[in-house]
């Protein structure tokens, strides 16, 4: 069923009795030409773009629990392409362009809202750093504006401009940045991939990777053995665990990142704002909750929940930026597991094991990358060469020294 205003109207007149499940729930076939492990945003996007743009035969996607249970449903929904380094800029801009056309492409309302992203700066050196970033963006054809204090005050009057420690001087603005309804991204890609014939198999956990003479031939799962001519791993949060099944050690530590939602308020924050003197970012959902977050907790974890010192730190950042939120009650907070790489940038590459492809290491910035990640990973699996905007995301860059370290902090995953 194609979704449109007409379908909604017809269904309304028929008491909404005619809606069908958005995707099938098939039993796994004995084998597939391509198996994607991971039913999060990146895995689903990969399956969709494989089916849409590449002629690779039958595609199966395996998810250990339900679609979108992982980080695609746990993030703070922000999209942007305001990066600095040449290895990152074209990739994230491709992602932004795919977001802009996503809903028409997959026929699903993902609530893509280009409400702008303001990165606030608080000092002269920070203004220079943001100006440099904005210039790098513009050189790559990406929109960026430096907004001074007066213009910012007119646009966002409720910030603490005269904070004694962190006075606000202005902001770097990317107008095309914004937010997207994260669950709808998973559901939309799942539905679109399913319509192109991809078998999406939930509650099917991969427990082993079967190899023959250095080549992957299939996966052991909780629902039996499934043969695979090619295997793509897109399981951020558990990348090291799945890669270990093929005997690989990755340059990744798993860390916990918390996110927060306040009680629902009337429309208040109509954009995305990030604090420059600490780590804090905030937007408001259509339900009215303030959605915000900050740093990762900073220690290895697979527990998907964090500790109180980080919550205090995030809330302090929020209070320093916009004291008005001090009266809002925090109603929910949760944790998700991040693949923190040693340079803070992702990996989309082949592996030393033949027919095994890896999409991993998204740190805490994977949501905005979802469309381009799927697009480039599909290209890699089908063509066996990297897509031109993802050539820097190699697995061997750690050995060769070609790191992509946006923050410049070295091989300390908890600092990226």
């Amino acid at each position, binding site marked *: 069923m194609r979704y449109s205003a007409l379908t909604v109207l017809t269904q309304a007149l028929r008491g909404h009795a005619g809606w069908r499940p958005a995707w099938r729930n098939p039993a796994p076939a004995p084998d597939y030409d391509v198996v994607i492990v991971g039913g999060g945003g990146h895995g689903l996007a990969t399956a969709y773009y494989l089916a849409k743009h590449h002629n690779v035969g039958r595609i199966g996607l395996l998810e250990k629990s339900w679609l979108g249970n992982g980080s695609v449903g746990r993030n703070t929904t922000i999209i942007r392409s305001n990066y600095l380094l040449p290895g990152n800029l074209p990739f994230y801009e491709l992602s932004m362009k795919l977001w802009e056309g996503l809903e028409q492409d997959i026929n699903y309302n993902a609530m893509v809202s280009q409400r702008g992203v303001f990165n606030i700066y608080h000092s002269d050196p920070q203004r220079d750093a943001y100006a440099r970033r904005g210039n790098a963006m513009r050189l790559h054809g990406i929109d960026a504006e430096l907004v001074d204090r007066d213009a910012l005050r007119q646009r966002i009057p409720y910030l603490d401009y005269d904070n004694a420690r962190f006075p606000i001087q202005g902001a770097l603005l990317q107008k095309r940045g914004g937010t997207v309804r994260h669950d709808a991204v998973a559901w939309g890609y799942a539905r679109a991939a399913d319509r192109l014939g991809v078998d999406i198999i939930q509650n099917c956990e991969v427990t082993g990777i079967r190899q023959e003479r250095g080549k992957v031939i299939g996966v052991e799962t909780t629902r039996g053995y499934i043969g695979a001519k090619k295997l793509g791993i897109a399981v951020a949060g558990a990348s090291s665990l799945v890669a*270990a099944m093929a005997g690989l050690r990755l340059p990744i530590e798993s860390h916990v990142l918390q996110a927060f939602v306040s009680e629902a308020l009337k429309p208040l924050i109509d954009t995305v704002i990030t604090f420059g003197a600490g780590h804090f970012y905030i937007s408001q959902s259509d339900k009215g909750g303030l959605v915000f977050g900050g740093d990762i907790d900073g220690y*290895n974890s*697979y527990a998907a929940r964090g*500790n109180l010192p980080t919550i205090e730190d995030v809330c302090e950042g929020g209070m320093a930026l916009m004291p008005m939120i001090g009266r809002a009650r925090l109603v929910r907070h949760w944790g998700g597991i991040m693949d923190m790489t040693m340079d803070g940038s992702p990996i989309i590459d082949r592996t030393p094991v033949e027919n095994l492809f890896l999409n991993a290491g998204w740190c805490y910035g994977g949501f905005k990358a979802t469309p381009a990640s799927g697009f480039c990973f599909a290209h890699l699996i089908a063509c066996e060469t990297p897509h031109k905007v993802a050539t820097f995301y190699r697995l061997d860059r750690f*050995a060769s020294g070609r790191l992509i370290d946006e923050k410049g902090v070295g*091989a300390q995953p908890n600092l990226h």
Partner: protein
Amino acid sequence: MRIACPYCGPRGLEEFLYHGDASVRRPEDGGAVPDQAWTDYVYLRENANGPHRELWYHHAGCHAWLVVTRDLRSHDILGVTAARDEA
């Protein structure tokens, strides 16, 4: 999460800094050639799901380096020793 420092007793997490996997060993040769042993030491991690030996620094306390064994699934701390006793 509270860590029982062998010198200071149980203290809150905010007193400690984390420095990652304690099981990696710096290559002996100290050489300038970036070979596989150095790549392994600097970048590659086991990152298994379960008990994890890791380094913590008691920066807001006694400044001792500690080796903490912690279950990554539950954050339960299974043991704390001074790093100098492990070396």
